[in-house]
């Protein structure tokens, strides 16, 4: 331990008080998001680890199957050709998205609960960042950061997979033309992006907002509080009234509603020729009702945080 010397040159002692400076809301929001990435490193480490695992496993798939698939390809019709070639790419994108989704759920349940549990909430509240900015920064992780990260990782992973496939094919003396044309990677990636934006960002928004609200509210076991009350109400409704209105609403929300809705959001596996209708998606009342509910829940979480102290 060093002893502190008396006196410090360059301290503005006696200087007139500066007028209260302020920073733009965007700056405060940016640093609030960065702070989340410092604390929850799994936000990027978990999807990265999945990508890494896929790329490590992919060469085994290549050596065992690709030359064989290429030889039998000519006997299939074009649509089947695409499916046969694209399968590993779809699986890779699906796994990365699943990782991002799981991280999103665990992050959302923990973030506003964790800062109370580790008693750092009052430290954060000692800084000039509003509760609403904090909650919106936390909400942006499952609603924006993770879907976008999943997309970027899927692009990079699939690009590397394509390179590896091409090398294997060339080494076997086979042509890469069929692979490149049949795979239609740009189109399927565009579909993936559309799916992430519509389903993960917009359609699931009330679901993440609910998790954040419970995270701000619960004194213990936020995960149980997030899951059990809807489950209990659903069971009660079923037994007492013999219908399952709540279960239907929640089920629709998770599965993306009816088939029409699923088609509008773009569904796995992605087919280059798949027809999506963004206009119909944007016109769906369910989308806007869900976003309104999400906004209300996030506002509620910000209000709750204002009253919250360490647990």
């Amino acid at each position, binding site marked *: *331990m060093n002893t*502190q010397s008396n006196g410090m040159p360059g301290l503005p002692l006696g200087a007139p008080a500066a007028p*209260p*400076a*302020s920073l733009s809301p965007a700056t405060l929001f*940016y640093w609030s998001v960065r702070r989340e990435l410092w604390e929850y490193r799994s936000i990027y480490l978990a999807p990265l680890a999945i990508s890494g695992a896929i790329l490590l496993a992919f060469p085994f798939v290549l050596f065992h199957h690709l030359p064989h698939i290429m030889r039998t390809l000519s006997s299939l019709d074009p649509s089947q050709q695409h499916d046969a070639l694209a399968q590993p790419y779809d699986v890779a994108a699906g796994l990365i998205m699943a990782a991002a989704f799981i991280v999103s759920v665990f992050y959302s349940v923990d973030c506003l609960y964790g800062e109370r549990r580790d008693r750092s909430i009052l430290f954060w509240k000692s800084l000039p960042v509003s509760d609403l900015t904090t909650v919106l920064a936390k909400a942006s992780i499952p609603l924006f950061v993770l879907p976008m990260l999943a997309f970027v990782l899927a692009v990079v992973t699939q690009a590397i997979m394509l390179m590896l496939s091409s090398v294997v094919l060339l080494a076997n003396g086979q042509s890469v033309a069929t692979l490149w044309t049949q795979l239609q990677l740009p189109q399927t990636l565009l579909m993936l992006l559309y799916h992430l934006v519509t389903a993960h960002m917009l359609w699931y928004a009330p679901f993440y907002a609910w998790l954040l609200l419970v995270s701000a509210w619960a004194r213990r076991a936020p995960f149980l509080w997030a899951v059990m009350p809807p489950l209990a109400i659903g069971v009660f409704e079923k037994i007492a009234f013999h219908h399952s209105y709540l279960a239907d609403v929640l089920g629709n929300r998770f599965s993306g509603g009816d088939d029409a809705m699923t088609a509008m959001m773009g569904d796995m596996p992605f087919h280059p020729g798949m027809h999506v209708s963004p206009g119909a998606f944007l016109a769906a009342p369910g989308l806007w009702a869900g976003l309104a509910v999400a906004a209300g829940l996030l506002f509620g979480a910000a209000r709750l945080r204002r009253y919250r102290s360490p647990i």
Partner: protein
Amino acid sequence: MSVIEARGLRKAFGSTIALDGVDLRVDEGRILGLVGPNGAGKSTALNAILGLTPHEGELRVLGRNPWSERDQLMREVCFVADIAVLPRWIKVSQALDYFAGVHPRFDRAKAEAFLARTSIRQASKVRELSKGMVVQLHLALVMAVDARLLVLDEPTLGLDILYRKQFYDSLLTDYFDHRRTILVTTHQVEDIQHVLTDLMFIHRGRIVLNCTMDDFEERYLEVTVSPAQLDAARVLKPVRERQVLGRSVMLFDCKLNPATKQRLAALGDARSPGIADVFVALMDDRADTTQGATV
């Protein structure tokens, strides 16, 4: 200009009244010590001032309502509290980045200069630092903010005497000037006796003493009374009498009887008492009266 102004500040938790109509005014350039037993309402008062808890009554801090304008207020108010712990996962460099990012009045070079005088490395995480180092880090961050009000709630709890002395030394030499205001609560009152300009005792949600330290030293006198003078001394109505090594030590409140002061010198060794001695005397006094009231 008043930095904190409260009128009829009241806060109840269920049937427990934590603050019972507190009137308070703290002017710029003061160092006020808020002293009280556990559960007296100190933390509740500080939480209200910092916008961490809703309250009844009127309260303005730097002209703002702390509960509805906490984020704007925190541009000019800093606090170090035993309860506001730094997150254990954060790196020292990240804490500096974050303060520089969100605090418009943070001077990063100044914080780094403070840290350079400690053994804290910027690559360390808070979890790797000792308790004393965490307080040093927090103080370095807070002292680098050009704030107008600094609130310290038990800032040195659990620290050894060296760290405690350093803490208040650097606060006075490197931070305090007459346009800043410091509000501090602690149970280690002997540490702050010579730091304060103003003193406030709070008990059961009410303020029982509110004076400047000059007035305090003027008003209270402790006398080690010679055995022969005991009766003469008791006539002057000490507020408290205790035995130290077989001798009677009496505490006098000269405000009760202005003539007392001259006569006390003749009774034995007179000196200015510690805050703790007066505090104990006043709290005993209160306990007696409330007991009397309930019987």
